[in-house]
């Protein structure tokens, strides 16, 4: 675990110097948010549509930044160097931590902005925040392992979203549903099945990721 932490810190250091993924993901989020708010405007959409829009913005902006972490190692020929000094699971966990951090930073910016601009009112903040947290773990887990897959393939850009979307769809669907319930003041019991699904998904995808990553990393 200490090694995973070191990998994470190294990636943060690197990201801090170039800000490549951070810029991409932030700008994408802002651009889509602007596009959505231009085309719909405040006070016109109900919680169903707004919660769907929020998750679509989160999903696609995460798609623009999550792959970078592995693609960078391949493109700069540092993957072999990293392989030489540490184990595959610490690489995966380190990269996963980085992607989780990246997503939380984006959410910290996008969610309040979205609520302000689109007039999206949350009645049950607890359910909403919990669904975002679990959802982030799921998105980051799936995104990280798919990023590892595409970093070894020949076409990297478009393939990422194509591969990640069907796998991450349960997160999006339950995330939207949980947000909708949080915005319409449903009691916690009603949203519990979504929260359970989000939590279980995150656990399953991260476990599967750790187990399967070894086969990608050590060809």
């Amino acid at each position, binding site marked *: 675990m200490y090694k995973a932490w070191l990998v994470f810190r190294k990636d943060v250091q690197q990201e801090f110097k170039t800000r490549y993924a951070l810029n991409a993901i932030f700008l994408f989020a802002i651009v889509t948010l602007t596009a959505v708010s231009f085309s719909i405007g405040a006070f016109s959409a109900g919680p169903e549509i707004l919660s769907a829009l929020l998750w679509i913005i989160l999903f696609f902006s995460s798609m623009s930044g999550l792959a970078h972490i592995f693609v960078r190692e391949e493109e700069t020929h540092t993957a072999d160097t990293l392989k030489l000094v540490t184990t595959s699971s610490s690489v995966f966990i380190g990269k996963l931590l980085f992607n989780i951090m990246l997503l939380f930073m984006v959410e910290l910016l996008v969610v309040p902005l979205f609520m302000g601009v689109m007039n999206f009112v949350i009645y049950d903040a607890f359910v909403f925040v919990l669904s975002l947290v679990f959802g982030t773990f799921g998105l980051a887990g*799936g995104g990280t*392992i*798919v990023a590892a*897959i*595409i970093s*070894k*393939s*020949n*076409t990297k850009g478009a*393939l990422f979203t*194509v*591969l990640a*979307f*069907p*796998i991450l*769809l*349960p997160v999006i*669907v*339950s995330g939207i*549903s949980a947000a909708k319930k949080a915005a319409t003041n449903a009691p916690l019991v009603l949203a519990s*099945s*979504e929260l359970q*699904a989000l939590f*279980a*998904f995150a656990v*399953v*995808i991260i476990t*599967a*990721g750790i187990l*399967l990553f070894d*086969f*990608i990393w050590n*060809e």
Partner: protein
Amino acid sequence: MFLKSLKIILFFLLAAVIYGAFLYAPLAKGLGEYTRVLYFHVPTAWITVTAFAVGALFSGIYLKNKELKYDLWAEAANQLGLLFGVLATVTGSIWAKMSWGSFWNWDPRETSIFILLLIYAAYFALRSAVEQADRRAALSAVYDLLAFVTVPFFVFVVPRIYSSLHPDPIVNTQGKIHMNGKMLLVFLSSLSAYTAVFFWMLKQRIDLIGIQLKIKQLEN
């Protein structure tokens, strides 16, 4: 000889299924003549899922012992899954148009089969994006297994969130099959006949792969 007699049995079974579906089995309440579609449409959907599971199994075996053969088998199973998935979708949406009035309306089962098709499409997109055979095998096997562990979530998540128009609540309430004996007989024999057809097709593909590999060996 043994295989040949199996094929003959399969032929008669399929003929019997078609006869039974059109003439023997009674119609279900609320479905009318469309009840008969059940005996052809449901097996294709069932095979789509079976093929997916078989493909994931082969992918797992590949990762275990890294023999290229198993990767090609997984590809074959997934190809068949894609074929039956398309058949299930097309026949299903014709049925939907006739009884619900529109070809597509995001019913949970429609959603699930659509997601399965998406996964298959992504799987083949990934395969075409990697040139090196062993790397392609490892990457697509990992993706296949990854997709496989997420599929149960669709089964649990999607139906809880969206309500269903599908006829199963009529024929099949609370997981108990409410078909009468005759219907059940035709349904189950249809299911097993189509499953046998699937495994026959898969076996053919596997033979084909065996020949291809032998040719490559000789050419080298």
